[in-house]
């Protein structure tokens, strides 16, 4: 009897294979997508926000800003596209803080699932949501006069660059959500990186018009190099310099915050 009890756990525990880990991730992704679909109001607001920014810079402020050598609508849209992806990341932080507070993370952590699969399922679902939001914003941009002036391949590469950058940033938001633990705080805290990355960048005005002390940061920060790269891919111009810088930032940010998030998840307590 004693032997039977001691042995039963060993036979019950299925070794965690990559196949099972991927299946866990798929299950969690599906759960998160269902949650996104069933809170359409959140989805709506996260698309409405970049829509307003887009219309604001196209029709209210755009007339006063002149960028030499390019139509302002073509100049500003890559930045707006990036912002649409950054705003989506805020919901990543919010959703994780909610899961933590509701006790969902306790349940998942007590299950034999692969732990990274929980976070990957979150960021993947948000990646899919971001791609849909981005599709909508690009369509809207074209309606208000934005045009691609480059090959289809280059334009698709530009869109891919935005998506990769957005996915890397999702891991930053995941870490924020797990670190602050409270949904309201998560939402407020998640605005900060968006503000710095979006406004102190080449998204809205050329960096050369900014004060000298700000230029070194604004010129080299990840959002700027990504926007410059995307702009070059959409409109033509030298691109490789920006491309490898943006990719390096995205991969670096992604890996660092993946590790940070996993560590926070391992110790997560509401």
């Amino acid at each position, binding site marked *: 009897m*004693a032997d039977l009890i001691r042995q039963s*756990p060993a036979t*019950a525990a299925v070794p965690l294979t990559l196949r099972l880990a991927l*299946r866990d991730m798929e299950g969690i992704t599906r*759960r998160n997508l269902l949650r996104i679909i069933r809170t359409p109001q959140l989805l709506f607001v996260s698309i409405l926000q970049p829509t307003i920014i887009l219309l604001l810079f196209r029709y209210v402020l755009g007339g006063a800003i002149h960028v030499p050598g390019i139509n302002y609508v073509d100049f500003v849209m890559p930045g707006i596209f990036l912002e649409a992806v950054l705003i989506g990341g805020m919901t990543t932080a919010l959703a994780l803080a909610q899961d933590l507070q509701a*006790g969902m993370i306790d349940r998942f952590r007590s*299950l*034999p699932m692969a732990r990274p699969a929980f976070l990957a399922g979150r960021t993947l679902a948000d990646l899919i949501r971001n791609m849909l939001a981005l599709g909508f914003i690009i369509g809207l941009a074209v309606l208000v006069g934005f045009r691609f002036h480059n090959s289809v391949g280059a334009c698709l590469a530009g869109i891919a660059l935005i998506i990769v950058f957005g996915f890397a940033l999702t891991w930053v938001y995941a870490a924020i959500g797990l670190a602050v633990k409270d949904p309201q705080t998560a939402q407020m805290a998640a605005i900060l990186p968006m503000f710095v990355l979006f406004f102190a960048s080449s998204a809205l005005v050329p960096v050369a018009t900014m004060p000298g002390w700000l230029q070194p940061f604004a010129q080299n920060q990840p959002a700027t190099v990504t926007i410059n790269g995307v702009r070059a891919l959409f409109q033509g111009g030298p691109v490789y310099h920006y491309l490898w810088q943006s990719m390096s930032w995205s991969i670096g940010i992604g890996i660092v915050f993946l590790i940070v998030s996993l560590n926070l998840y391992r110790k997560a*307590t509401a």
Partner: protein
Amino acid sequence: MSYGGQVAVAPMIEVEALTKRFGVTRALDQVSLSVGAGRVVALLGPNGAGKTTLVRVLTTLLIPDSGRARVAGLDVREDAKAIRSVIGLAGQYATVDQLLTGRENLELVGLLYHLDRPVYRCRAQQALERMSLVDAGDRPVKTYSGGMRRRLDLAASLIGRPPVLFLDEPTTGLDPRTRNELWELIEELVADGTTVLLTTQYMQEAEELASSVVVLDAGRVVAAGTADELKDRMGGNVLEIHVTHQADLEKAASLVAGLGTAAPRVDAEQNKLSMPVKGGPRELIAAGRALDDVGMALEDLGIRRPSLDDAFLALTGHATSSVNGFRTRTGEADG
């Protein structure tokens, strides 16, 4: 620790000198206990006693500072992954996804237990039937009542058919009728030999469900045994006085105070006063005489066996919430 009549089998839960600190607070202080296979043990204690902390350590959610803890023969530090395959956890706060349907919740947990799809689909259906949730199975959980949510949570913890089940305050916040329903379900479920550790603030729950009780207070085990053993440890009886007018409570308490082995406990909401006494009839008659001398109006006066509630008070020096939810005021009792 040994329980009466238990066959010597390997314990399913073994805890030795477990300590967990949060800052300067010792949430668990040298806690030791052991639960035999197929036993149901209630961890009884007030809020902040360390019940949930112990459950979190045993379910691998929290790493202890020192001491040893084994579940199904597996160490919580070294074999955490293996432990997760053999345990089920139903939390204090119904940890089911509000936006998913009952069925989606169960199927997701089944998938994450690494069951095959036909298996978890079938088990989810069975669980819905068993928990009387078939009609609500395809509705989002946010439309469920509190009791339905707890039943679903319980079902989710059982999808993996775990040999060890942890129930952290399974009925806290439920109304008495729903609580009784849930107790019946838990009794059914444990009848098939699952080892259960449940935490509760309710004496009645511990008595109803558990074969033995471990009393936890301020992170330490203050007593362990069957409910009867704990009551017997009190010795003697309890004198109970039910006064007609609430204003008389304090006066009655002072009149009979000298007769008991501890200070009288006053329940203002029920106009009742109870006090442990060594003997029985002598104290009853003395109390009756003293109260009659001042002409106090009484509803009832009697002697009864100590309840687990009284035992808990004697062991810890303070009361926990009683099952009916009335607040009890306590004197400086000592056991």
